[in-house]
């Protein structure tokens, strides 16, 4: 060959390169070999996480609110199952599970089983949370279905479902960000996402345990080397009453939105917190219901919004409680102060056409006369109103500790200067005071704040710190936290003023706008409110407390955009809840239980602000709908 020398040159290059490879092999195996041998040994020790059981949540009487329900998963352990059998097993399983809600197909099962072969000693999930019928059927045919196992796994379950949705929140799998942020979460951990589940996450989650096991290369345990057991989450007893939650849901019906908040006035215990529309928190505990989850977040009714804490509204006439107390406390009003209502005042109308005539304080409160309170407001002016409102829990975060809250507004000249733009900004005028005095204008409150307001008012101005934890019992049985009442503020309302307040609140229910909340044999007092809203559909309010002389429940009912009067729609709900509670507690004799109030919701007007047909009361007019 003419270029035979070049072939030999190539041979030299090849020999050179291959000897480089051999040198590297020598280095890896003979010099570094013992290091790699050590690494390959440590490949065989595996740390396994032992997940603790999440803490159980019960109500004040021990009724379970969030529990860990046993559930059954169908899994497949490939070890020892001949490959030819897979198709038959997949077919039989698909047939057996055909009755499930979302039956897996034969092809899906077969694919999962083939996938499982990659780690033949670890079981692969085929179907989660199957019915007991399937469990029985599979157990029966055990010998026909080699490798198919039923595994028991705890799932979070909320027995009351939507009734406790916003109170308890829900759980979801830890997000990649949470896992990254070194907070101790690992993939597959369940984390509280809202409400009590989120607020008490560290206590409910418990402490993970670990076991170090020696495994062979396929993950099969050879022996256990060490174990640090998991510590189960704490058992949490809430101050909440499950019955009230349930009654609130019953009374609210399906198509209205709003909120119910009940407090124990003298201690600050949260008795109930319900927001409508509610969602079923159980959909978050089930991977299969992702479509339902997605629809919750896109629903225009905003079921995920906790209206008790995260929404603010004009309080309407319920705010007259503040105005009355401010007047009495400053001496600007006495029970005998009389103003005249001619139906129109300074261009603004009272809700009652033709007016109420001359009224004293109690009757003005009882019949919710706007014009009386316009004039009262003018006399009191803004600072006392704001001071009393703040002392009773408005214009501040309610501090429930159950997630995000709204601050709300009770306006002052400084506030208006800071927040209102336009020609009106610098002048806090008579009109602003008048509107504030009847709970319109700039005033914004959340249902939780109104529940605090009525509770503080009926306890002579003692504002308690709200709390939802009655006690927390650790896994070892020791109680690590117990409820203790804390006074946040005390307005020290004198007895004679309290007498007037009680008389007025009782009169509202006895023979006033809130007569639908009257309960035979129970001393209950309240105040209605019909607040104008930007949509033109009024919000209906009712706040009340019972028994008035020794208050055990302070309640706020709010129906968002109800387009009806507080006395018409909110008071019956309060009556239903308080009456049932009173019967259960033995304040009144336990006779026949009235059914939940049935309401017919008026059709929504096409154009916002158009006249609304009310059920009984006359139609609301501009600045006049404050019943």
């Amino acid at each position, binding site marked *: *060959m*003419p*270029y*035979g*020398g*070049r*072939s*030999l040159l*190539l*041979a030299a290059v*090849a*020999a050179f*390169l*291959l*000897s480089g*490879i*051999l040198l*590297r*092999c*020598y280095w*890896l*195996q*003979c010099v*570094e*070999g*013992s*290091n*790699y*041998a050590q*690494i*390959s040994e440590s*490949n*065989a020790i595996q740390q396994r996480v032992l997940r603790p059981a999440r803490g159980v949540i019960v109500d004040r009487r021990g009724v379970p609110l969030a529990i860990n329900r046993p559930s059954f998963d169908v899994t497949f352990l*490939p*070890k*020892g199952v*001949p*490959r*030819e059998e897979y198709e038959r097993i997949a077919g039989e399983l698909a047939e057996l599970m055909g009755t499930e809600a979302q039956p897996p197909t034969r092809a899906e099962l077969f694919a999962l089983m083939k996938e499982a*072969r*990659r*780690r*033949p000693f670890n079981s692969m999930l085929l179907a989660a949370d199957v019915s007991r019928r399937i469990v029985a059927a599979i157990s029966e045919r055990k010998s026909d279905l080699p490798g198919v196992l039923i595994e028991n796994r705890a799932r979070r379950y909320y027995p009351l479902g939507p009734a406790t949705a916003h109170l308890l929140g829900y759980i979801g799998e830890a997000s990649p960000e949470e896992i990254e942020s070194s907070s101790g979460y690992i993939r597959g951990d369940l984390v509280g996402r809202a409400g009590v589940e989120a607020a008490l996450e560290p206590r409910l989650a418990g402490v993970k345990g670990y076991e170090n096991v020696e495994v*062979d*290369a*396929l*993950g*099969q345990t050879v022996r256990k080397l060490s174990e640090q057991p998991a510590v189960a989450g704490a058992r949490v007893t809430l101050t909440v009453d499950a019955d009230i939650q349930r009654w609130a849901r019953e009374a609210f019906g399906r198509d209205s939105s709003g909120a119910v908040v009940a407090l124990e006035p003298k201690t600050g215990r949260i008795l109930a917190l319900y927001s409508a529309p509610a969602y079923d928190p159980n959909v978050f505990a089930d991977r299969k219901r992702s479509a339902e989850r997605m629809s919750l977040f896109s629903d225009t009714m905003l079921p995920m919004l906790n209206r008790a804490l995260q929404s603010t509204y004009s309080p309407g006439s319920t705010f007259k409680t503040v105005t009355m107390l401010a007047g009495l406390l400053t001496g600007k009003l006495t029970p005998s102060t009389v103003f005249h209502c001619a139906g129109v005042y300074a261009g603004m109308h009272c809700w009652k056409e033709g007016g109420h005539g001359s009224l004293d304080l109690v009757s003005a409160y009882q019949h919710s006369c706007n014009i009386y309170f316009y004039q009262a407001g003018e006399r009191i002016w803004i600072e006392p109103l704001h001071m009393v409102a703040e002392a009773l829990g408005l214009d501040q975060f309610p501090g429930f500790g159950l997630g995000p809250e709204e601050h709300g507004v009770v306006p002052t000249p400084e506030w208006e200067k800071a927040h209102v733009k336009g020609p009106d900004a610098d002048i806090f005028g008579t009109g602003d005071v008048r509107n504030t005095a009847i709970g319109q204008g700039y005033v914004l409150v959340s249902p939780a704040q109104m529940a605090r307001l009525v509770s503080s008012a009926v306890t002579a101005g003692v504002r308690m710190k709200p709390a939802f934890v009655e006690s927390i019992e650790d896994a070892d049985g020791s109680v690590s936290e117990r409820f203790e009442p804390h006074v946040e503020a005390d307005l020290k309302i004198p007895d004679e003023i309290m007498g007037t307040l009680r008389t007025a609140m009782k009169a509202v229910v006895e023979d006033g706008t809130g007569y639908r909340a009257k309960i035979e044999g129970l001393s209950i007092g309240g105040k209605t409110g019909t607040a104008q809203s930007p949509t033109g559909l009024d919000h209906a309010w009712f706040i009340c407390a019972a028994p008035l002389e020794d208050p055990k429940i302070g309640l706020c009912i709010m129906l968002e955009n109800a387009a009806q009067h507080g006395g018409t729609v909110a008071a019956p709900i309060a009556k239903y809840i308080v009456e049932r509670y009173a019967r259960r507690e033995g304040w009144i004799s336990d006779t026949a239980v009235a059914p939940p109030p049935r309401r017919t919701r008026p059709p929504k007007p096409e154009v916002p602000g158009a006249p609304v047909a009310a059920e009984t009361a006359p139609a609301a007019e501009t600045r006049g709908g404050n019943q």
Partner: protein
Amino acid sequence: MRLRKPETGGRSQAASQFRLVLDPCIVGPALTIFFFSLCALFSVVYHPIAFEIEPNLATDFTTPFVKHLVWGTMGLAGMTWFAFIDLEKVRARTRWIYFGGLVLLVAVLLFGIKVRNIRAWLSIGILTFQPSEIIKVVLVLAAARFLSLPEREERPLTSLAAVAILIGIPSALVLKQPDLGTVIVYLSLLLTLPFASGLPAQYLILILVSCLLAGLRLMTGMAVESLGVIPDGVVKTLVTDPHPALMLLVVMVVAGAAIAAAMSMARMRHAFTVFLYAVVPPASIYGSFLLTDHLKPYQKLRLLTFLAPQLDPKGSGYNILQSQIAFGSGGLLGKGFRGATQSTLGFLPERQTDFIFSVIGEVFGFFGVAIVVGAFVLLILRILWISAQARDRFGSLVCVGAATILLTHVLVNMGMAIGMMPIMGIPLPLASYGGTAMVTVFTLLGFVLAVERETRLL
């Protein structure tokens, strides 16, 4: 130059027996490598734990081990058959073989089966094969035939360009699959065959320098961009920004053309060579920027994890580290069939195909590795020796092509297993599980044996 057909008539009995003997320096190493791969595959497939998983394993005749044995035997039979083929007939039909190969590659793109995102397999009846493997033989034959034409020697540069096109067309088709690793094997022929057929050394040096520069730019550019090992500055701009490279290319084209023109007017020799030296290296650097834009994300990731496998030991760097752990933990004498848990069981992926060398390393240790590497050295040197001895240029170049294909596979595959190369799906010849590759390599060896026989008998 025409070869005489091997004739049996008119020769002595001894000579005719001698003619039937195949070169032991080719067959011996080939069988050794195959034997070691069989043992490694045996330990993977028939580890005691595997019987626990699959109780019917012993009677299962579709395991990779059994198939490997069958493919190997068929390959050996094929090799023997090709060893007795008339090379002149093959040479005469090379054109048809080449076009047939192209048809197969087009068919793959149209009707191929996708496995792990690469459309490389063609299924005809019960037979599923990889045309891109067979093309390796086809390209060796085609390039060897073209370069062995007598007039080619006179015009080395146009020959180089023509061979580049000959190899470029199937490369483009295979890149469509997309299978970069196989294309690199094809392109390696471009480094050796023209050189072996008389391309002046300065051109080979030019190619090597250009490849080196482009590769260096590619690696540092990716390292800087993704790992941020160099702070902002001139160096970073040079390796990450294509504009300086483009400017350099333009300047060099103008300057090179001017110098070359001046040289040729002064009647100096090598004017064109000077021009090429001025233009090709900057062009290849700029080309590496274009390649970066066309690399798939997973390909970039592989290059990156090659540069820094410890960055993500459980992610994309997993394969490299696990392979090194498996290989290194074999030590001097290996762990034996039962002890080699790293590679034979769960940890090492692709252990039957691309990472079979790691299995050999773990099972047999450096002792077995040295034998296997030694066998490859012997095999490749012997093929090149046969090439040097061959009296026929076609046969000689076929041997160089076969050696090139083997060497590239060995370097890339072993380099990958021991962490010297980025991960590329290139099998280890005669060892990795896979029918088409096995038959391809045995066919190449068959041609080498045919060359050897004819050289010996003439």
